[in-house]
């Protein structure tokens, strides 16, 4: 065997790493190679032992690290080789680098030394073997064919070197070939059961990968990338930890290679997981994500704005829009407040100021709403842009004076050079930046730059110009000769700048010329005073009106309180004096410090209700003194009305009564329901000492009385019995009662309600009778009409 042999052996082997579908073929191939190796050794042997020695060194057949079979098949291979003549050839797989040495040095040296002898011993047996092989050949598989060919070759070789030998050795060899056949069959079976081959291989793969990873990562990658998925799956089922450990080093490389090869696929594969991964990481450590992404966000946003500005505007509008609208709301509120107090002292002042300055009032309101402040003032050398003098508000962080001045100068130059047409000359006056403004005023060799916040007033700009011209005229030489040393600029410039900056800060009022202020001050004061007084007056008026309206008795009369000449006038009409004075009382409670002029007209002054009531009572009593008059009165204050009920003797008295009550002050209406009292003059006469009245009277007089009572249903009768003056008083009294009773009975018999009849006895002579008149005139029963209460 020579170096070519070793090369041939090595060549197909690298593929044996691959645990792929063609693995069985590979394994059989390898087996065949081993057989060939065996044959080669034998074929070479008889030619020249020394030549072989010089050509073959044991290391030439090494298969370092390239063997891919599993340990089982490996041991079988070794066994096969070991069973070749004299057990002289063995395979060593114990060395750490997995080299398989076909001929370990010790063994090979023995072969080399004794080769001719050994071969002599082997060769005689071969003819028989050849025959046997021909008998036993079977199967059409390529590997079998290969094996058969080899055996055929072996037969040929042996036949060409036929040497006589004894039969026992031949039979041994024969036996070995039978065993070889068995192994081959066994191996074939295994080849068709890949798992049995694969499983024992797995640990080895891990080791191999590690080793190869250290030696040559790239070749490993190129080999492993196409089958990495299956290998990983298989191995990870077995031993996850070892797999992870082994793969950890290669993975980044493998992934980057894959990314280079097909970035889109990698992106597709990873994309759905990225969101989840970020979410998970945020849960674990929020800041880490922020720190990682933070710096990139700015760039990303910038790029996005460049690429798709409108989309960004849409996205940001809800946030920025709100901020702006919040600011606008505050601004509008401020303006609103200013507009609302238009008539206040401040409002009037603003109106006058607007007229004086020749700008709109709205502009002034805007100025007031946006707080005006001078942040800094610089006196800058026009050509060099160097700062000659400056004044900055100490509270603020100092501006980068030189840079700012330089830049302003450059901008000025730029505008003059590029914006203006050649031959013309124009100046930059303001640079606006949100709430800030830079006001530029140029004169001579210098210019003033004022950085202000808010809206500068016209006076301020006027003042700025005035200050600048003062400086430019007074110090033009120093300024023209300015060489970068501020000390060459007279110190008198500094206070001018300070004055300009601070004066505008305090108030714009003082920036008005003093004379105008004084002239303005008086009318403003007067107007203000009037305004103030008017304001107070309005307050008192409205307060009084409210109080009057909330008083129930006065609310309907619409009394108007009015302040005139320092007095609170009450104007209106009420029906009476009482309400008038009531209104006066309310007004003086509401405005205790005001002199009240009660000009309310009491259209009708009602009498004191108490007095009216007394008068009604008096008139009633007076009428009741008149004979036949029995009246009662009922009067209501609220209605100013008197109801008169009762009995009067005739119509004339009834009319008198009505007139009399109508004349009482406070009484508007008299309801007179008095009745004219009927008079019953009828008398029934009796014989002396008798209770029997004349029968004739029964039919006529009793009937007449009954009819009278029927006509006047409310009327009751007093039936009064009289006697003549003769006889004893008690008897007369008794006789009188008896006579009245008889009359009553006679009336009751005539169906008169006895409840209307009341009997009395009178010891006196009947009215109109005297002792001189005949006695029978006194023996009578007379009637008095009355209406019970």
């Amino acid at each position, binding site marked *: 065997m020579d170096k070519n042999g070793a090369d041939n052996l090595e060549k197909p082997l690298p593929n044996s790493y691959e645990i792929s579908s063609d693995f069985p073929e590979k394994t059989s191939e390898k087996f065949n190679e081993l057989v060939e190796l065996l044959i080669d050794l034998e074929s070479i042997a008889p030619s020249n032992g020394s030549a072989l020695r010089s050509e073959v060194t044991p290391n030439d057949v090494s298969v370092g690290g390239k063997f891919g079979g599993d340990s089982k098949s490996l041991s079988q291979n070794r066994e096969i080789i070991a069973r070749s003549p004299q057990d002289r050839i063995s395979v060593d797989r114990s060395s750490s680098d997995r080299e398989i040495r076909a001929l370990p040095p010790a063994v090979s040296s023995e072969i080399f030394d004794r080769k001719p002898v050994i071969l002599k011993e082997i060769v005689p047996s071969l003819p028989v073997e050849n025959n046997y092989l021909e008998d036993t050949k079977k199967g059409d598989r390529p590997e079998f064919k290969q094996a058969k060919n080899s055996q055929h070759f072996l037969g040929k070789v042996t036949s060409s070197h036929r040497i006589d030998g004894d039969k026992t050795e031949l039979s041994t060899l024969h036996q070995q070939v039978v065993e070889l056949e068995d192994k081959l069959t066994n191996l074939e079976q295994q080849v068709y059961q890949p798992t049995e081959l694969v499983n024992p291989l797995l640990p080895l793969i891990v080791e191999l990968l590690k080793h190869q990873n250290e030696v040559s990562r790239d070749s490993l990658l190129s080999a492993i990338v196409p089958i990495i998925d299956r290998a990983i799956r298989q191995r990870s089922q077995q031993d996850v930890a070892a797999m992870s450990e082994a793969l950890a080093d290669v993975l980044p490389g493998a992934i980057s290679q894959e990314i280079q090869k097909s970035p889109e696929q990698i992106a597709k594969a990873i994309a759905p997981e990225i969101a989840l991964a970020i979410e998970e990481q945020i849960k674990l450590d929020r800041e880490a994500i922020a720190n990682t992404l933070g710096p990139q966000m700015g760039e990303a946003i910038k790029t996005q704005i460049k690429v798709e500005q409108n989309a960004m505007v849409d996205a940001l509008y809800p946030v920025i829009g709100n901020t702006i609208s919040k600011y606008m709301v505050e601004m509008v509120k401020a303006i609103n407040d200013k507009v609302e107090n238009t008539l206040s002292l401040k409002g009037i002042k603003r109106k006058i100021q607007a007229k004086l300055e020749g700008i709109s009032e709205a502009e002034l309101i805007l100025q007031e709403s946006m707080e005006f402040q001078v942040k800094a003032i610089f006196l800058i050398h026009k050509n060099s*842009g*160097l700062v000659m003098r400056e004044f900055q508000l100490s509270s603020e962080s100092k501006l*980068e004076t*030189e840079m700012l001045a*330089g*830049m302003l100068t450059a901008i000025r130059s730029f505008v003059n*050079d590029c914006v203006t047409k050649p031959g013309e000359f124009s100046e930059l006056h303001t640079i606006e930046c949100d709430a800030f403004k830079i006001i530029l005023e140029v004169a001579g060799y210098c210019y003033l730059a004022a950085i202000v916040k808010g809206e500068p007033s016209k006076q301020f700009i006027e003042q700025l110009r005035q200050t600048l011209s003062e400086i430019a005229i007074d110090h033009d030489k120093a300024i023209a000769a300015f060489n970068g*040393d*501020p000390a060459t600029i007279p110190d008198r410039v500094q206070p001018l700048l300070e004055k300009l900056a601070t004066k505008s800060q305090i108030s714009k009022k003082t920036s008005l010329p003093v004379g105008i202020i004084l002239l303005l001050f008086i009318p403003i004061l007067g107007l203000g005073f009037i305004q103030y007084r008017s304001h107070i007056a309005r307050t008192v008026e409205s307060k009084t009106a409210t109080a009057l309206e909330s008083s129930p008795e006065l609310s309907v009369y619409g009394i108007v309180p009015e302040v005139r000449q320092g007095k609170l006038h009450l104007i209106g009409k009420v029906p009476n004096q009482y309400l008038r004075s009531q209104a006066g009382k309310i007004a003086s409670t509401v405005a205790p410090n005001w002199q009240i002029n009660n000009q309310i007209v009491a259209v009708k002054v009602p009498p004191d209700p108490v007095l009216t009531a007394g008068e009604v009572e008096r008139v009633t009593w007076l009428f009741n003194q008149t004979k036949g008059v029995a009246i009662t009165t009922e009067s209501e204050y609220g209605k100013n009305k008197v109801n008169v009920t009762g009995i009067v003797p005739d119509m004339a008295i009834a009319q008198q009564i009505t007139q009399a009550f109508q004349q009482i002050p406070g009484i508007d209406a008299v309801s007179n329901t008095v009745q004219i009292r009927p008079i019953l003059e009828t008398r029934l006469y009796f014989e002396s000492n008798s209770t029997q009245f004349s029968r004739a009277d029964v039919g006529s007089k009793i009937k007449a009385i009954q009819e009278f009572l029927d006509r006047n249903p409310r009327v009751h009768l007093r039936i009064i019995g009289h006697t003549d003056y003769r006889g004893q008083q008690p008897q007369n009294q008794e006789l009188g009662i008896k006579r009245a009773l008889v009359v009553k009975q006679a009336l009751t018999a005539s169906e008169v309600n006895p409840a209307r009849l009341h009997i009395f006895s009178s010891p006196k002579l009947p009215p109109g009778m005297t002792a001189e008149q005949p006695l029978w005139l006194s023996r009578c029963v007379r009637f008095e009409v009355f209406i019970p209460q």
Partner: protein
Amino acid sequence: MSLISKKICLVGDFGVGKTSLVRRFVDRQFSDQYLSTIGVKISRKLVKLSANGNVESPDVQLVIWDVEGQTRFQAIASSYLQGAAGAIIVADLKRPETIASIVQHIALAANANPQGIAIVIALNKVDLIDETALADLLSLSQWEDRTEVVGTYTTSAKTGNDVDEIFQTLAQAMV
């Protein structure tokens, strides 16, 4: 006593390394990226003057105007150069035409400042050429007769070679 400031301008063709020189001088940084200056970039730096023996050494604040480079289409705006006490005219040693235009720039700076101006020539990117070539390039100089020029240096903003020196020399000449 207040600090004296001086305006100086860097003038030269586009891409000769004016901004890089300023950046090296002011920020002590260098970047290979080329960013074209538009308009003017202004920086400032305080320079300590070495004592001349007679009086004390005052500090000078340099207000450095890094003016955009001249291209075929656009001349340098002379108004940027007005009021400058000094100028550094920069050329690129790798581009001989930029050295050729130095004389123009000197004239421009001098005309903008009739009261006088100190000029330093900086032949930049010296790190990119070898010494023999350098000798040939230096022979191109035609500004020996200009009295304004107070020094000529081969500089490198990348290595920092002679960068501080040009500013120092100029500052010294201006005071």
